[in-house]
């Protein structure tokens, strides 16, 4: 078997094992209702994590996405409350701003040869600050179109609901898979993660790819912000604090190498679902503190980092 699939298989195995464990204690957890809720509740994280996966595949990091989600939420809420703009055009505007913001960070990272960590950290403070400038209060969103959107869902057998935000996440994952594995852009993303000097020598458009990757991450954060505002029906500048770290955790648990160059989009989806599953279990249990989510995720992260190290070590020894 090709060793590159090993982290992905490990992720899938852990997911199935965890689900089996949950099922043995609470048989209800296998209902379509729980699965539907799992998708709905984690949609915003999943969408942001797909963008993050692209960034991490290039060997970079994007710390700004939590703030961009909050900014987008506040931006939408303020615009809907104070203007008569239709939500769809507000969405388009919000996505444009988030994409340009990401692209700008990518441009700075490339042209000034700055570490992505610092540039996106600055972006994180900037976007959070901009959200506060718009409003410090939590602004409720009351718009007929929002109610319509929230009522869009498919009934699945067993009383489950596949909501619009869940569908958006699934579509995002599919687009992410195709983009990463079936386009030249995707191969450039992996190439950057494999080594910048070699990528340059092989004619990879480094500047364009870097800018596009951070723009894509910005776009995904913007989309995640829209989904988050649909999910909470509000815009609040203190929302989504630390989502960037949850997203990074999901990407790593999903089997993507934090140093770049190796990983799968579908792994990220499963990483997000594992994190959601732990939370659902704690809700089902009712007596556990929600901090157990963090503790389990911390343990899983360590396991995966160790697994990746081990894998790199094994593949470097076993050459044909």
């Amino acid at each position: 078997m090709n060793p590159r699939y090993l982290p992905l298989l490990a992720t899938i195995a852990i997911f199935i094992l965890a689900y089996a464990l949950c099922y043995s204690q609470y048989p209800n957890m296998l209902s379509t209702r729980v699965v539907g809720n799992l998708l709905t509740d984690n949609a915003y994280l999943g969408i942001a994590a797909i963008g993050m996966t692209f960034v991490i595949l290039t060997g970079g990091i994007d710390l700004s996405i939590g703030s961009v989600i909050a900014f987008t939420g506040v931006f939408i809420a303020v615009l809907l409350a104070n203007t008569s703009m239709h939500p769809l055009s507000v969405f388009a505007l919000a996505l444009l701003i988030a994409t340009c913001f990401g692209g700008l960070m990518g441009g700075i990272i490339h042209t000034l040869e700055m570490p992505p960590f610092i540039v996106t950290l600055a972006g994180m403070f900037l976007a959070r600050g901009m959200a506060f400038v718009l409003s410090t209060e939590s602004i409720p969103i009351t718009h007929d179109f929002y109610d319509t959107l929230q009522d869009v869902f498919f009934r699945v057998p067993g009383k489950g609901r596949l909501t619009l935000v869940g569908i958006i996440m699934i579509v995002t994952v599919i687009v992410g898979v195709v983009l990463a594995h079936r386009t030249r852009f995707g191969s450039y993303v992996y190439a950057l993660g494999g080594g910048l000097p070699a990528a340059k020598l092989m004619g990879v458009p480094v500047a364009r790819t870097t800018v596009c990757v951070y723009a894509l991450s910005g776009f995904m954060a913007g989309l995640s912000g829209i989904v988050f505002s649909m999910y909470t029906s509000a815009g609040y500048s203190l929302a989504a604090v630390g989502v960037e770290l949850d997203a990074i955790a999901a990407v790593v648990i999903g089997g993507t190498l934090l140093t770049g160059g190796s990983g799968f989009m579908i792994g990220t989806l499963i990483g997000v679902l594992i994190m959601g599953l732990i939370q659902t279990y704690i809700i089902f249990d009712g007596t556990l503190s929600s901090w157990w989510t963090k503790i389990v995720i911390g343990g899983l992260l360590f396991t995966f980092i160790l697994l990746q190290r081990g894998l790199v070590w094994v593949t470097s020894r076993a050459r044909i």
Partner: protein
Amino acid sequence: MLLQGKSITKSFPGALALDAVDFNLLPGEVHALLGENGAGKSTLVKCLTGAYRRDAGAILLDNQPINPRSTLEAQDLGIGTVYQEVNLLPNLTVAENLYLGRQPRRLGLVSTRRMNAGAREILSGYGLQIDVSRELSSYSIAIQQIIAIARAVDLSGKVLILDEPTASLDATEVQMLFSIIRHLRDDGLGIIFISHFLDQVFEICDALTVLRNGRLVGTAKPADTSRLKLVNMMLGRSLEEEIHKEKDRTASVDPVQLQFKNFGRSGHIKAFDLDIRKREIVGVAGLLGSGRTEMAELLFGAVGHDSGEALAEGKPLRLTSPRAAVAQGFAFCPEDRKRDGIVADLSVRENIILALQGQRGWLRALSKSEQTAIADGYIARLDIRTPDCEKPVGQLSGGNQQKVILARWLATNPRFLILDEPTRGIDVGAHAEIIRFIEALCDEGMSLLVISSELEELVDYSQRVIVLRDRAHVAELTGDAITTSNIIRAIASDGHEDKVLAS
């Protein structure tokens, strides 16, 4: 004529790297480019492939003048390059590496199936039947090298430049590579082969060009030349020109200070015996890649030895790390001054004090005034040209940087000083000063091991000269036998002759 370089000139600040060099490559020819470090081989290649912009001269491909501004442009014109390292992406599959940026698409999406089929077809032309959907890193360096060649040929198709392609291959892998090179040559490709393995040059090449100090020394056919002539061309000596010792440097009669018995490391340098007396300068000669630097690294403990032992005045020495070696009174000025020697951003004072402070340990810190006194003392003694001891050492000239490193080690008061190419890349004045200094240190009672490719320099100050070839000691010259021609003969004689002589 396939590729022609006409009086290509390239200068860098302070140095003329290429001085009106002509180069001609025929189709269906493997053409070796030879020369020592700093001869201008890589500069010439970089000018031909557009990685550097030449200052003057013309490049003609198929008799059409070309002006590549980047390696990618050169590749589109038909000149492909395979470097020793950093070629392909280890995390992508073999097929992706071959097709990156030009993957076959259907409806805008990459068709992995067609790409893999294409990759298999390309590689079968090289006799490789491998799983192209596996990552590149799961294959050996030799196979990666072949894949790199396949990509370069597929993309360019007229000229293939191979920069030290055999450096990390074993003998069977080299033969595999050579059969591919012959195959490509028979297909009409022009191949530029850069290597410092003379055996390989004679085996595979149809023509050779030798550069030295940025100048063209000559072009020849391997059949019309000998190893001896070639080494002469590379090192810049003619056989008639005998340089004898100017000064009568009698062999040291002082007691043996250091003994290395059966000292070596497999894959690095073959085990050797070496005695070094007090008040003695031992010279080391050999071509690039002969194991000169490896020997120095081994003696200094920078690379651990796996056989033999070191003795000082009969007592065993622990040489497991540079730190242990320094504690035993060893000192080492490395060949690559910029990378392994100076700390460019630190001041002259801090650079000079570095080894001494390391030896004392951080608990016994030198006060600022002590540091300044030591630094100023060496600045005066070695005549280091710097406005004051606080100037960052990276801003000094090469010769002065070398003196700073020398000062750093002299401050530790060593008994054994290893100098790897102490006079490379420094101007004539500083050159003479450093040589005078080497002799003065010896007269004061220090033992020195000096590695140099400047043969007359070695002949001048060494009491003994050790000659290295193919990572082994092959000769030791003493007394009147130390002449440039004897050194060159020892370097050029190949393994077969040795065996005949021995039997």
